[in-house]
């Protein structure tokens, strides 16, 4: 190899960071804005025909939020948690129990209670069990998820199999109606009349769009916190623990404490998303929290690319949106979903968006090969 090495094409991330900060902020704002108006656009192809698009988006956002939370546990700290649905259930049940079944606590207090209780349960579960590793941790957490569900099912105080209804919704403001687009073929027209069903901040039964907005705001907040955490000492400690626990411990990382922290963080987000879910659907029962749901959450993180927060969101979108979009095959959608999981695992094991670390490692690999190549060239 006598040719000089051509500089590697700048990756998307590199070109992106080269942009001036104000431009970056503007682009981010535009992207966020797009997602906020998405339910009103009713875009053809994307929009779902057989289910209300706003409701589908609210579900999708919910999955994305859960995936973000699980990504902290699984992607950053490398802890295989198969019982994540347990925290989700705890969040939802807290809202149900204290907002409807045994109390009339105001909604904002309910949310705070939900995250507090789920975080505490994360610490309670993590403190003894994080001593076991790898697959055993997976089983213990799986057991935890089932214990939570079965306890809800068998406890009369939690209304058993009947579940909880009349869960409070977020307080409404009902300021003005938001117009939405109606498509006639390729021609769009603004619907100001009856179609303007989305009343700004009216959390009602019929229109799921405000819930989607709420979830979107929560996702953005969690994303910011996630980014700050991952780029901090905590994030590096997690990465070190995930890659090699013994080495990290020897280098002075108190791995147990950081694993526990990851668990608590994950439980926080899990409880939060469960609480939001409960206050959207208004009624929950133990069947809403089967282990299969845990598997779906796990699939979301792994499909998206564990360790990558955007990947987690993409995975959440894939897992929640596809079955809704293809309702035509309603009965076969789980078969198709299973097939999709199989294909993705087989042909894209890194996930749709591999974490930056994996790509860095790949680039470093290429760079080393090139270096070795030039050395050989110089010797020849």
């Amino acid at each position, binding site marked *: 190899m006598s040719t000089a090495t051509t500089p590697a094409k700048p990756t998307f991330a590199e070109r992106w960071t080269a942009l001036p900060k104000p431009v970056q902020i503007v682009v981010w704002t535009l992207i966020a804005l797009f997602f906020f108006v998405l339910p009103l656009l009713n875009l053809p192809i994307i929009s779902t025909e057989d289910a209300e698009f706003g409701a589908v988006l609210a579900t999708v956002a919910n999955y994305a939020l859960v995936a973000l939370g699980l990504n902290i546990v699984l992607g950053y700290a490398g802890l295989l948690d198969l019982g994540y649905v347990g925290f989700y259930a705890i969040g939802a049940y807290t809202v149900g129990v204290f907002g409807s079944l045994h109390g009339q606590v105001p909604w904002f207090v309910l949310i705070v209670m939900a995250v507090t209780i789920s975080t505490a349960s994360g610490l309670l579960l993590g403190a003894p069990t994080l001593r076991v590793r790898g697959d055993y941790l997976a*089983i213990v957490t799986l057991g935890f998820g089932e214990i939570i569900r079965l306890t809800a099912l068998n406890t009369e105080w939690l209304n058993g199999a009947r579940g909880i209804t009349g869960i409070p919704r977020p307080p409404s403001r009902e300021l003005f109606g938001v117009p939405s687009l109606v498509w006639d073929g390729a021609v769009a027209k603004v619907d100001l009349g009856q179609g303007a069903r989305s009343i700004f901040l009216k959390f009602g039964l019929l229109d799921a769009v405000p819930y989607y907005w709420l979830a979107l705001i929560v996702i953005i907040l969690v994303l910011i916190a996630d980014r700050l955490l991952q780029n901090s000492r905590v994030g590096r400690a997690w990465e070190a623990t995930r890659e090699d626990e013994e080495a990290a411990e020897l280098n002075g990382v108190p791995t147990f404490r950081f694993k526990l922290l990851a668990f608590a963080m994950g439980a926080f987000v899990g409880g939060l998303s469960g609480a939001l879910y409960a206050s959207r659907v208004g009624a929950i029962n133990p069947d809403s929290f089967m282990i299969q749901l845990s598997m779906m959450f796990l699939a979301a993180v792994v499909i998206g690319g564990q360790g990558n927060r955007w990947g987690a969101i993409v995975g959440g979108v894939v897992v929640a949106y596809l079955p809704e979009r293809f309702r035509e095959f309603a009965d076969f959608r789980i078969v198709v979903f299973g097939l999709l999981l199989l294909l993705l695992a087989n042909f894209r094991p890194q996930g749709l968006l591999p974490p930056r670390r994996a790509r860095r490692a790949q680039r470093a690999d290429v760079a080393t090969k090139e270096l070795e190549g030039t050395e050989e060239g110089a010797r020849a």
Partner: protein
Amino acid sequence: MNLTFTGLVVGAIYALFALGYTLVYGVLRLINFAHSEVFMWGSFGAVWAMTLLGARTGMSWPAAIGLLLVALVAAMAVSGGVALVVERIAYRRLREKNAPPLVALISAIGASFMLSEIMGLRDRIAGWLNLDTVLAPYVRQARENTAFVNPLPNVQVLEVAGFQIRSNQLIVLVAAILMMVALDQFVSRSRLGRGVRAVSQNPEAAALMGVNQKRVVQLTFFIGGLMAGAAALLYLVHIGVTRYNVGFVLGIKAFTAAVLGGIGNIRGALVGGLVLGLVENYATLLGLASSWKDVVSFLLLVVVLLFRPTGILGESLGKARA
């Protein structure tokens, strides 16, 4: 006494089922999440064989036992086949690419969803193929409980200290323990079993010594499938119905049994299964409603793992009798 015996019967079924998890884990270090569907397909294999042969209750003893043996073969054949399919579609490519275990887990979850839903939609699929009239007795009511017609008269055969032991229970217990012993002997004595142990101990060294790893892995899945099929038939004899999603909860239980005894350890699966079955049934003695028994079994698992992180007998498919 009745509790003990029921516990042992259920535990023996768990133990047989758990073998599939434990074998695959021992060799590949993977949790085979699709194993529960292998069991479920086996149970339908048995039901279909009985439908085909026109089984009915109250047949003569020799005929009944013959039919049960046919059903056993059918269940084992279907389960073994499905296990091989799972290995082929969900694992082989990933193993060749050295993918991380978590990806294999996702792949297995995908396979599991597919297998269970295909069974749940069998009436629709038969409709597509215009076979619904021909196959009617096999496909109808795909999402309902499907009953297993047990040709054996379920009579009381023994009475110990005033408690009765019924023939079905006795058959299940004896058959399960015979199967376990046969498998244990197979793995510790036969040439193929030696290969399985070699790969589980050190895959690279085994490959260097001329063990065909691909064959061993297939064999592991196949044997696990056979045992799941046997467990499926015994489950049907004990419980009487199956369903397209029957594997899920039972699979978690069996897996718990495998972990409890020490996953990767064949004798551990037996111990774990029996302990789990007993504890579950004894839970009612503590004044807990029987609906709490699943909670008790998971709590037991958590507690055991905390004090003995590798299970009661430890992890040793290769180590123990190498």
